[in-house]
């Protein structure tokens, strides 16, 4: 089963190779891995998408915790979480296709971030299903280039007491 694991690590050289080496050395899967500094620049946040049965995921979490540069490990599947991925897609667009491309962009609430007479570069964010869907629709036009960030995810805050929740909804 797919799991998203959020890992807070020391922001120093070699940490990525320790984490990657742990996965390759022990034969764990990495579907995607993204890493960037946190608000506190001495730490980085990794989001690792992996898969395995319960025992393997338990080992992954424990082995990550065992790494000295790892500060915190959270298996997001144990809670509610939201996740996003961004893709940048360069599409061939000629004549009539240009309008079709813009329609697709509109439907998916994507953005055109660069344009030439024969291409559009489209940025889209969402869950993996949405990204797959837009790729499927754009494919007939001809995709020239595709890059994806891999997923990032964050745990949802626990449900609040009813009164507060209503207030929040009202404000929203």
């Amino acid at each position, binding site marked *: 089963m797919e799991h998203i694991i959020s890992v807070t690590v020391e922001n120093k050289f070699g940490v990525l*190779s320790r984490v990657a080496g742990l996965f390759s*050395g022990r034969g764990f899967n990495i579907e995607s891995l993204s890493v960037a500094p946190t608000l506190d620049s001495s730490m980085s946040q990794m989001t690792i998408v992996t898969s395995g049965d319960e025992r393997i995921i338990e080992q992954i979490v424990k082995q990550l915790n065992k790494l000295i540069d790892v500060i915190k490990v959270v298996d997001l599947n144990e809670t509610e979480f939201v996740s996003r991925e961004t893709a940048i897609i360069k599409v061939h667009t000629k004549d009539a296709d240009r309008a079709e491309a813009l329609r697709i962009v509109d439907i998916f609430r994507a953005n055109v971030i660069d344009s030439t007479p024969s291409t559009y570069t489209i940025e889209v964010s969402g869950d993996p299903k949405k990204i797959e869907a837009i790729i499927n629709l754009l494919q007939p036009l001809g995709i020239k280039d595709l890059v994806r960030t891999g997923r990032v995810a964050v745990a949802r805050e626990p449900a609040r007491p009813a009164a507060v929740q209503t207030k929040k909804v009202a404000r929203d």
Partner: protein
Amino acid sequence: MKLTGAEIFIECLKREGVKTVFALPGGVVLKIFDILYQQKDVEVILTRHEQGAGHMAEGYAKATGKAGVCLVTSGPGMTNVITALADAYMDSVPMVCFSGQVPTSMIGNDAFQEADNIGLSRPCTKYNFLVKDVNDLAATIKEAFYIATTGRPGPVLVDIPKDVSMAKAEFTYPNSVSIRGYNPTYEGNKWQIKQAAEAIMKAKKPILYVGGGVIFSSASQELLELAEMTQIPVDMTLMGLGAFPGEHPLSLGMLGMHGTYQANMAMHYSDLVIAIGARFDDRVTGKPSEFCPYAKVIHVDIDPTSIRKNINVDIPIVGDCKNVLREFNQILRATVNGEQKELRKPWWDQIQEWQQAHPLTYHQEKDGPIKPQQVVKRLYELTRDRDPIVSTDVGQHQMWAAQYFKLAKPNRWLTSGGLGTMGFGFPAAMGAQAAFRDRLVLCIAGDGSIQMNMQEMATAVVSKLPVKIIILNNGFHGMVRQWQDLFYEGRYASSDLGTTPDFVKLADAYGAVGLRVKKVGDLDAVLKEAMATDKPVIVDVPTYPYENCYPMIPAGGCNHEMLLEDPPELKKKQAGAGKVTPEDKDTVLTA
């Protein structure tokens, strides 16, 4: 006052209480060696190969319980020490290895004798550091020793570029270390401990399964108290030998692939496995799906990753063995009474039945070829009063040593368990001898494995480390030959060593003492002579080449299905080849 990096290095070693460094110089570490040369607090033992330096540091660490230290140069120096680091990592040996590195400005340029030391050592160290600034050196060394010796111990590498050892900085040694991502758990969860204690009280057929963790946390006394109080039999892993007295009536000996019959049977049929500082290695579990089918499992280990890695655990307790055992004892002392003993009587009757049915057995003819087990047994009997430290290499001789050399105390047993490194034994023995100059240190080796680090004999002679090597010389890579006899229809592919060197002359050539046992009747006299010599000694014992090590659980087999002797077709083959068979025996010895 400002000190150079090299001076800071030595000041740090002194503050860590390091007395001995196993080292081999090279271009980028010359500054450090130059400073070492000018002081007397830290002894430098110059080895002939960096692998030797690494294993010596391991032997030192296993015998003393403190971190062993080695120092090697960049490039090949580093690659040579990798085997020792990997060995220490598998067996949780506290060790700090310092490696030289090319100057920081040249890193990554494929400079002479450059290697990516951090990348090379990453998968076989607990942690590693590249020191890029001399101002960080002291704090880094402090952290290195802290990481190596705390939690589950392990090897740590500190890579020091040449310019860092030359540059100057103000020296201050930190008093304490705090690493936010590293907080080993020492106290076990109280509720889990209570659950475990209750399970121990209720169990009819419990077994203690103890490993190296007991030795590293100095918990032997607590273990002895628990076992005696509850009358629970004790199985030891290869790494755990010495954690519990081998001759104690509650000891069933070693378990696993070549463990004793009673140890494996008791494990298989138990209803409660109490694992303390052991990690359910495949050499112990056999086929994991059929491992201990009737048992609940309590697992005490300081490393959470060891728990539920190989087998399912009912009551996991993450914590230091000593602390957890103490808490067990505290709870049990209040509750234990005669009832448990009564409750477990059928269990002990059963165990005694197993013990009597298949004790460790071999057959030594009075005038026949020398049996390797006989050598180990006599060595044990002749030296036990001197409380020796015993090292081994890897293979048949290692298993016979584990079976017949019954250690009474911890930190006496130096062997390569997890990685199974041939060539480990001799340098490890030298490391222990360097720590305890007056003790008797034995190295039981095979003629195959001793040749893997033979060059260290020069170190032993020059540095006056009077290790006694006993070579069980069968002309084969014996364990390989045994597997070929059992599973490859006797085709001895690359296991027959052909001509081995004359070890007596070889010892002589190095300036050590070489002795040979020509017949079994001379065994005691030669061993005694060796023990009375104050130089390094090789005792070459030509042994019966086709002796196999039993009991044996074939790889992937189930623990209660042991081979106990050569299968009939193998006996026939050896008889046909003019070799002795047990039927020719005129004496039968059991141990």
